[in-house]
């Protein structure tokens, strides 16, 4: 076990965990930030997506102890006093079914739109291809990313 500091959603937090503990489990079990979801543990489903220095990363596959110098943003930190444009788009189009994968979808979409603010449909499809939705709400995710881009422009 070792102790280290992380910066999560703008707050400095102290964590005690084994060096190999993935960020996912530190967020969920130590910091009680359970919006980041466990889906596969091997970076294949995208349910655990967070932002590390603004870039979408799979929190199940990065040890938290390596992120002491990074800014980490989770789904809980995305909205300030109001919902982000991506969250607004998700709400407006009534995207979720079970809802479990949606935090990861929103985090992937948010990071993607920062890099590509006016994507076409093919670019949206490619950007979101790594995030599984078992309920297959894919049509609405695709539309919501496009709507969010419009809201942000």
């Amino acid at each position, binding site marked *: 076990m070792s102790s280290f500091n992380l910066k999560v959603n703008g707050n400095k937090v102290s964590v005690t965990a084994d060096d190999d503990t993935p960020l996912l489990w530190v967020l969920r079990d130590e910091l009680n930030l359970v919006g980041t979801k466990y889906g596969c543990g091997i970076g294949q489903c995208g349910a655990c997506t967070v932002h590390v220095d603004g870039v979408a990363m799979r929190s199940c596959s990065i040890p938290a102890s390596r992120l002491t110098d990074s800014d980490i943003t989770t789904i809980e930190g995305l909205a300030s006093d109001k919902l982000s444009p991506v969250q607004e788009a998700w709400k407006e189009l009534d995207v*979720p079914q079970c*809802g479990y994968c949606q935090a990861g979808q929103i985090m992937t979409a948010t990071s993607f739109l920062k890099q590509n603010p006016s994507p076409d449909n093919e670019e949206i499809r490619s950007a979101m291809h790594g995030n599984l939705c078992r309920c297959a709400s894919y049509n609405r995710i695709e539309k919501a990313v496009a709507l969010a881009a419009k809201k942000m422009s």
Partner: protein
Amino acid sequence: MKDQNKVTFSRRSFIRTSALASGGLLIGFNFLTACEETAKPPVDISKLNFNEFNAFIEIADNGYVTIYSPNPEIGQGVKTSMPMIIAEELDVPWEHVSVKQGDLDTKNFQRQVAGGSQSIRFGWDALRQTGATAKQMLINAAAAKWAVDASTCKAADGIITNANGDTLGYGDVVNEAAGLEVPEDVSLKSPQDYKIIGKDAINVDMEKIITGQPLFGLDYTSEGMFYVSVARPPAFGQKISSFDATATKAVNGVSEVVQFGDKIAVLASSTWAAMKGKKVLQIEWTSDGNLENTSDHNDELNKILDRKNLDVRREDGNVEKAFAEADKIIERTYESPFLPHNCMEPMNFYANITEEKVHLVGPIQTPAGTARRIANLINRNEEDIHLEMTRMGGGFGRRLYGDFALEAAEISNLTKKPVKVVFSREDDMAAGIYRPAIKYRIKASLKDGKVTAYHLKEAAINSNMYGLIPHFFPAGAIENYKVESGNYRSNITTGAWRAPYTNFLAFAEQSFFDELANELNVDAVQLRLDLLSNVEDGKDPNIQYSAKRMIDTIKLAAEKGKWGKTNANTYQGFAAYYSHNTHVAEVVDITLNNGQPKIEKVTVAVDCGIVVNPTGAKNQIEGGVIDGIGHAMYGDFSFEEGKPNDVNFNTYRLIRMRETPIVETHFVENELSPTGLGEPGLPPAGGALANAIRNATGQILTKQPFIKELNTRKTDLTI
């Protein structure tokens, strides 16, 4: 078919009211009793207490309404749509309504179930009656206050108005209403007057979902709780011979290792520590039965199909005679693999069993049966059990089975600690209760340009088609008709998977119809309409589908999907299927890209009666269709020596964004009672796709997943 205004039960048998201590009215109703088709008063009403109620409406003295949704939410939208029905008849603005998940009541957990797309179908009458009764009580209370006849008062949007134009809000009369008799004669709204039903209402948990608030079983924690990872036999047919936990106990955070049955539980202070501890357990497994292979299952299922006499499930006329007299006979065998459910939220459950109480929390489609089984397992009274239902990260049938909840209960009972069992993805896929592998053999005869006989044989692992499935279309449409089934008993656990049996049966039959159409040189849609024209609705009580409704649905899909009118590069496929009391027809459009199909669009027509929440309803259809296409294309699951070949998403392929078609949904408009939507969109999708591929390439697909037969390049995941 039930007329939507005809209701047969007595409200007194299932509704009771009381004043809230904090001011306000509490209306309890026995959702289960109320949902029975011929509900009788279960006991003397005066002896009922609130333990017998499992669904509640709270009306606060400011007029705001809280509805406790009785049925589990697995993503099918009932937590939104069921309260909408109550709010409609209660006549309150939807903005004044908030919805909470009701807990399982310890005394009355007979049928709080999500499954079979039946929540809305069974709830429709009861929910409307409850809302209308509550509204009438508020009107009666206002009338008493004004000293006027209640029949001269009206209520709408949470406000009661009398003949003089005086008004009172619902909140102004809740305390008086709490003391009144439950009225017997209430009238229901006419569908033309609906203000909430038929309008889009977004998911009631939306804000929590998109901001990452705790909602799901996996998110639940309690003070002093231990995370538990369980080692289970890696192959079906194995048991524990011995184990050594020395390395596990050396893992930071691991506190305890206990064996229960042929499983070992690792308790730890974090999920990661529990999973790590499990990985380093040294376990000797020994075989305790057959270690089965998919190739053996293939042989066994073929043997069943070759057998002369199986279990006859429906028989009309004489198929053998028709075959003997036929101009031509067509026969085809269709094959499907096992399928895991792969809910995105892996199985998990919390249990805290103490001498005083049994506290259970988690995602479960069958809280009632599970609570009962746990009571038996740990030898406790059902009254001691308090089960809280969380939102579920998908169900698809997997959470009908309480195995994971029983594990949590057993471990908590053994260790006397609050525990949460968490399956890893590998555990979830390897300890599944799978859709069984199934084969269908269909044989039909043609004579004088007509289908004269149809003989379907089912060979399945462990169990066969249930209920009225043998009477689904084309039963009733073909004079000589026979359905037979048989099964092979395997030690691999199998169970319900979204649209059980019909998820593959529809593919087999709908593909076969296209072959018949081809042989008869008839358009594929026309063949189905011709067959349906042979069916007289209501003649055979076993035949639940309506030929008239199916014909209308097929015509709507053909019209909206521009059947037969697309450009030269687009190929179409058609399928229509009735399941879970809902009629669905689908047109799939594909193009070819280097000879490989690209699925562009699916146009869907649905007759589910009145559409309660259109946005939620379309979401179910979009998801069901893409799920059906995804599993038909990619779903593959096999066993070697009792062990599954895939245990995570690196090798098990689920459909992803780039492979998805655009789904366009149209509803047949009518005022018939609503039916479910969680499942019926799925069954026709695979058949419609196979038919489109056949029309494009000439290749006849008989085995799922199609990807193996199409021999396309491997998946290229972009992560």
